[in-house]
């Protein structure tokens, strides 16, 4: 029984069957990659997991509870954090404030009318955010406006924000898309470190095979809205069906 | 300003507040106690002219300001004296009021009661005005009248036609020279009867706010007393600019008279629309269809252009009147500004003169003394014939003009012709008339 169980999920957009009969099981404390060619339905699947879309059929269970019909913030509060393809951070806020917000969400829940206490008095949140910044090696940038960070730093910040919530499952949507090689490698190292040191499950949607094979210990290949195969990386590499559907095209 | 409260209970408290907040050095001298609000102490007295300078009635406001300036000139003894020469009371000497030179401040009411009160307050609090006058809508007049009552200064209303101003909202410190909706009805009814007969079916379009309602009520009562039937009364939003959807149903309603209880921009547009829909040429029930605009204003009639031709209404005063007072006023206004005055200008000129005269006669600027001098005051020579300022409700009773849009105007000012001067007796009503019931005059407030 995995931490995330996707059963028979289907989703239709008008005439397009984006997903059909998707079954997927993400085991706890693994790095599970979902790969597939463009239009395979990776993003649709991801959106079904986080509550942005509701599948037409099937079920999505997280830790034994259904996530269907829940709003994104509720699903996040259940323990799923999401990293976007282009870093989504609070651009108008400073790095430190960015880091504090998920800490508040962790402490206070989805809504709390915390209007009179001062931010500067929130000791545990401040400490936690500070700690997270140090872990992300961003402590010296804490007063910078986050919109002015480099792309790689934005990504680090976003991942740090997600981690500060101590999620059980971290979803990453092409985390290295559009990054320079050096930044990509840094991100891979960061994610490796996270996977090794934390009690966390990572599901990653990725295009870049270098990233996938550096990180994943389980891979699902999607093609035309259905899982083609699910296996260990070594086996995927050698699988002729995958080569044909995917690697053949890109390699 | 409201030192009544200071003297009654507040002295200790506010005195304490002052001395606690600021250690009062000896150069601070608290103002000596005055007998009433803004008692003029120097060689001059300040009046507050509060008129719409922005917004849709800005042109009327501008005309009122011209008349005020003229009145001040005359009271201070320059110019040709205007109606001061024809005024039946000869108390004014042309040396200001009680020997004090008249100065004035102006403000913008924006035709909003809030802004009007703010402006009036600044005149009272900052400029030391001892009398406030002006306005060109009933809402503003009533709001400012209430303020003046509270503050303890005299309010001489400008253009306000609602029954409420001297009805349920009357105030001891407020005085109205202008006529009102009831008088419009009473003056118009006999003329309408002689022109259109007593078997008519009337359709009312009414601006959907207090003034509109009182006017509709008044005209309805007056015409129904003639035997007319009221087919329908429809309320139109104040903000409406196009009245076509209200005019269209009139066509098939079986009505043969349309009464437009509108003023200002509403009147111009509704009349224009009614004429557009061919109502003026229409035949219903074998009779000519007629349009009536109970409250006419020449400035506004100009906006309606040719559409006013042949349409009847009432007005407070018109420059073509031939009596001595009107002639004198038109001469001095026309010489100074190059065009004839409007009824708004006439009213505020009269009000300023009446106030100055009352102060002169009372020998004091104290609002209570002034009110005493105005109450029950009978005068003549200000253009409307013999006039009474009734003591019970501070309403002027005088002749009312029934006018008609002129067929062949000779100039751009020559838009209306006087059809009949309805004598004051015919438009006088009892103090306890139900349309004016509900309020109390109270007692005058000198503010100190």
């Amino acid at each position, binding site marked *: 029984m995995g931490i995330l169980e996707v059963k028979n999920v289907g989703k239709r957009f008008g005439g397009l069957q984006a997903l059909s009969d998707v079954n997927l099981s993400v085991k706890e404390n693994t790095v599970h990659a979902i790969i597939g060619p463009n239009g395979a339905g990776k993003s649709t699947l991801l959106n079904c997991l986080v509550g942005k879309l509701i599948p037409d059929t099937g079920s999505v269970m997280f830790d034994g509870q259904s996530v269907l019909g829940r709003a994104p913030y509720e699903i996040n509060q259940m323990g799923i954090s999401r990293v976007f393809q282009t870093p989504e951070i609070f651009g108008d806020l400073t790095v430190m404030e960015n880091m504090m917000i998920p800490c508040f969400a962790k402490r206070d829940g989805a809504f709390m009318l915390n209007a009179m206490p001062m931010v500067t008095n929130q000791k545990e949140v401040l400490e936690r955010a500070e700690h997270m910044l140090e872990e992300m090696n961003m402590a010296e940038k804490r007063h910078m406006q986050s919109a002015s960070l480099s792309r790689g730093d934005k990504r680090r910040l976003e991942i740090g924000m997600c981690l500060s919530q101590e999620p059980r499952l971290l979803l990453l949507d092409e985390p290295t898309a559009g990054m320079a090689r050096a930044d990509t490698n840094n991100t891979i190292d960061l994610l490796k470190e996270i996977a090794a040191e934390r009690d966390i499950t990572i599901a990653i949607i990725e295009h870049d095979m270098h990233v996938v094979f550096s990180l994943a210990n389980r891979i699902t290949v999607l093609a035309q809205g259905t899982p083609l195969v699910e296996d260990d990386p070594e086996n995927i590499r050698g699988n002729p069906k995958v080569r044909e559907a995917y690697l053949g095209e890109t390699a | 300003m409201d030192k009544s409260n200071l003297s009654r209970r507040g002295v200790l408290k506010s005195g304490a507040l002052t001395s606690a907040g600021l250690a009062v050095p000896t150069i601070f001298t608290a103002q000596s106690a005055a007998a009433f609000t803004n008692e003029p102490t120097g060689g001059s007295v300040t009046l507050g002219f509060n008129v719409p300078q922005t*917004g*849709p*009635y*800005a*042109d009327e406001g501008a005309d009122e300001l011209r008349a005020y300036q003229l009145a001040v000139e005359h009271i201070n003894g320059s110019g040709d004296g205007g109606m001061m020469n024809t005024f039946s009371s000869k108390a004014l000497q042309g040396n200001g009021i009680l020997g004090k030179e008249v100065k004035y401040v102006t403000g913008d009411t924006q035709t909003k009661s809030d802004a009007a009160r703010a402006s009036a307050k600044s005149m009272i609090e900052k400029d030391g005005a001892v009398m406030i006058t002006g306005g060109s809508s009933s809402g503003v007049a009533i709001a400012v009248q209430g303020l003046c009552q509270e503050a303890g200064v005299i309010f001489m209303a400008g253009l306000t036609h609602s029954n409420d101003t001297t009805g349920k909202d009357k105030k001891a410190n407020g005085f109205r020279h202008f006529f009102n909706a009831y008088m419009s009805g009473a003056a118009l009814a006999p003329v309408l009867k002689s022109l259109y007969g007593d078997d008519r079916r009337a359709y009312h379009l009414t601006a*959907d706010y207090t003034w509109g309602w009182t006017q509709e009520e008044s005209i309805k009562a007056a015409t129904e007393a003639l035997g007319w039937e009221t087919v*329908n009364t*429809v*309320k*139109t*939003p104040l*903000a409406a*600019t*196009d009245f*076509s*959807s*209200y005019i*269209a*149903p009139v*066509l*098939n309603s079986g009505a043969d008279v349309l009464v437009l209880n509108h003023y200002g*921009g509403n009147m*111009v*547009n509704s009349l*224009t*629309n009614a004429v*557009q*829909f*061919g109502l003026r040429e229409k035949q219903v029930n074998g009779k000519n269809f007629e349009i009536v605009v109970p409250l006419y204003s020449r*400035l*506004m009639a*100009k*906006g*309606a*252009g*040719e*559409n006013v031709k042949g349409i009847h209404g009432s007005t407070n005063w018109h*420059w*073509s009147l031939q009596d001595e007072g009107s002639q004198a006023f*038109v*001469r001095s206004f*026309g*010489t100074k500004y190059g*065009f*004839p005055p409007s009824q708004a200008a006439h009213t505020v000129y009269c009000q300023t003169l009446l106030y100055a005269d009352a102060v002169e006669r009372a020998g004091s600027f104290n609002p209570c003394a002034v009110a005493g001098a105005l109450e029950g005051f009978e005068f003549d020579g200000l253009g409307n014939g013999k006039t009474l300022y009734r003591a019970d409700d501070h309403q002027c009773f005088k002749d009312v003009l029934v006018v008609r849009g002129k067929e062949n105007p*000779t*100039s751009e*000012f*020559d838009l209306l012709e006087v059809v009949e001067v309805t004598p004051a007796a015919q438009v006088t009503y009892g103090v306890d008339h139900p349309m004016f019931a509900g309020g109390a005059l109270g007692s005058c407030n000198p503010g100190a």
Partner: protein
Amino acid sequence: MDALLLQILNGLDKGSAYALIALGLTLIFGTLGVVNFAHGALFMIGAFVAVTVQRVLSLSYETVDPSQKDFLGNPLKVKTPYVESWFGPETGGMIIDWSVPIAIVFAIPIMVSVGFIMERGLIKYFYKRPHADQILVTFGLAIVLQEVVKYFYGANPIQTPAPDALNGVANVGAAFGMDIVYPVWRIVYFFFSVTIIAAIFSFLRFTTFGMVVRAGMADRETVGLLGINIDRRFTIMFGVAAAVAGLAGVMYTPINPPNYHMGMDFLVLSFVVVVVGGMGSLPGAVLAGFLLGILESFASTTWATTTLPGINQIIIYLVAIVVLLTRPRGLMGLKGVMED
């Protein structure tokens, strides 16, 4: 039945003014992404072009007529328009009579230049600024424009009648055996606006210029990458939008005498129309304009106001609320427009 058709006709007639203003507003918003609070002022300026043309045409010289007296008792100065002395009273009178249609000829170049000046001189500096800033600066401009007009023309409405020939009423129902009497000029206005709307739509649909503009409305950057100078085209579209608003104003003057604040009176309403239609959707703006006109007309019937007192005052807003809550982006709006 006749009464019903009359109200529908009236609604179409009211709606045509709304549709024209909303169309221009949407053109500006769709092409330049600017929320133009001065659009009502353009409508007003158009109307005052008509007033000015009328005044210029009736410029007069004065002759003293001792037989008549003016209000001060002096001999009356009789005014005779120059055009009457040049072309004779007959033709001259006719020219003055037709001043509103003549004003159209002048309004087009004037309004296009006003649009150009506005866009080049002010609006273009605000493309990248927040919508709130655009609203504020165009609102300030609207105030300035209307105050300038007030300074020269006064606050009272100014009568600018339609030509006599178009001034009466016509029984539009006669052909169908019904009795629907309606003012001729209002019918003219309706057809005029339909023509303008059709012209704008075919311009955008059938000319290359229009196609580029439409493509630019959908995706400005891509079109820019194709090496097309989209900015210049958008400037031209601003001029066109200004001309549409101005023409709507010129033609409106005989319906209701123009005054300096007529633009503000229409402003809120036209924004409601645009939003109900869906921000950025041209057909939506036109549809919503006519729809709201008809609904407003029906809400002012005695039947409606006695059933629900005050409904005529709030119908527009009520419709806006209902539409926006059931159709999040208006009737025909596009996703993501003005939602941030």
